[in-house]
């Protein structure tokens, strides 16, 4: 169940049309390390997590990523809402214009469509949390690259905010991995898969499983 709140997590107010910048930023909507990919990754992985608190964290971060997706889409929208055909041509936005006019569609900066191929839900808590750590770093690098390239402060402020969130999420996934390790064989973390070999998981996850 989700509830919509009619506001952005971080305000976006862009006053200049710039299809070129929109085409770069759209990568964080539908690109390989974008917010949509992040959200779907975490919201898919959470069901089978052996530690309840980690499933909760994935739900909360996956939900926050949806609000980041909304921030990115708002930026793309505001950068293109008053677009003319001439501006689309001059800004290299003509191909996008042909397929979507000024509609908002999840694709990468390279025009590759959004795809679930960019993320995993592997059914192994250590594997998934390690992927999540990497995912936050990849998204941070995209924001670094965008910040190097875009000078307009109206656009930079929300990008800086989103970059900072990647670092916080990395820290939380690291802590989630530490919690998960506590349920594993201390001498060999790879002795069993805590999501599949449930009978071998030690407390607190075992205690939680009993609660259900």
């Amino acid at each position: 169940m989700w509830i919509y709140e009619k506001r952005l997590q971080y305000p976006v107010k862009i006053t200049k049309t710039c299809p070129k910048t929109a085409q770069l930023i759209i990568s964080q909507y539908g690109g390989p390390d974008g917010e949509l990919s992040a959200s779907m990754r975490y919201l898919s992985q959470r069901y089978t997590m052996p530690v309840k608190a980690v499933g909760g964290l994935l739900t909360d971060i996956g939900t926050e990523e949806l609000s980041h997706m909304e921030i990115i889409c708002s930026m793309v929208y505001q950068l293109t809402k008053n677009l003319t055909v001439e501006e689309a041509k001059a800004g290299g936005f003509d191909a996008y214009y042909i397929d979507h006019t000024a509609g908002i569609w999840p694709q990468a900066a390279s025009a590759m469509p959004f795809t679930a191929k960019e993320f995993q839900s592997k059914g192994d808590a250590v594997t998934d949390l390690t992927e999540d750590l990497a995912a936050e770093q990849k998204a941070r690098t995209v924001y670094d690259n965008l910040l190097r390239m875009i000078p307009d402060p109206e656009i930079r402020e929300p990008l800086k905010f989103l970059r900072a969130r990647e670092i916080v999420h990395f820290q939380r996934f690291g802590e989630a991995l530490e919690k998960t390790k506590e349920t594993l064989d201390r001498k060999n973390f790879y002795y069993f898969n805590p999501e599949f070999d449930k009978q071998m998981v030690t407390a607190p996850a075992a205690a939680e499983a009993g609660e259900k």
Partner: protein
Amino acid sequence: MTEREHLAMASVPAQSWGELYDPKQALKTGTIFKDLNLPFFAAEDLAIPVVPAGEAGKDPKQREREELLGKIQEVSFYLDDLRLYLDTHPEESEGLSELKKALKQRKQLLKEFAVSFYPLTFDCLAGIYEEEPERQCFCWEKGPAPWEGACV
């Protein structure tokens, strides 16, 4: 290697509770935690001034609305970051007491905004009808779409 570190396994030290930014600074920074503010050199402020768009000619009601919405954004983000910390540190008593304070503020601000302007969530309609039981307004369609940048 410390006790928590192992070969062939990633390891991130757990964060300890530390100094916090106030809600306004936290939203601007992207975290409430001073320890997690790790900026990128190329993200430092450029010498391009931010021109406030049409502040002067702004209608006072809209200014009031934007100010109140700003406060809601700040306290809500404070809660967003606090929540993730508590997800991995559920026994942190200082975090819990901050949470209790901020939740109360947010509840009050959401109700105030709904009554004076429009409901931000469907549940906020309850606040409006509580204050004005006779109000004949569905109200859920009121207010600008969030992606319009509140410049409507």
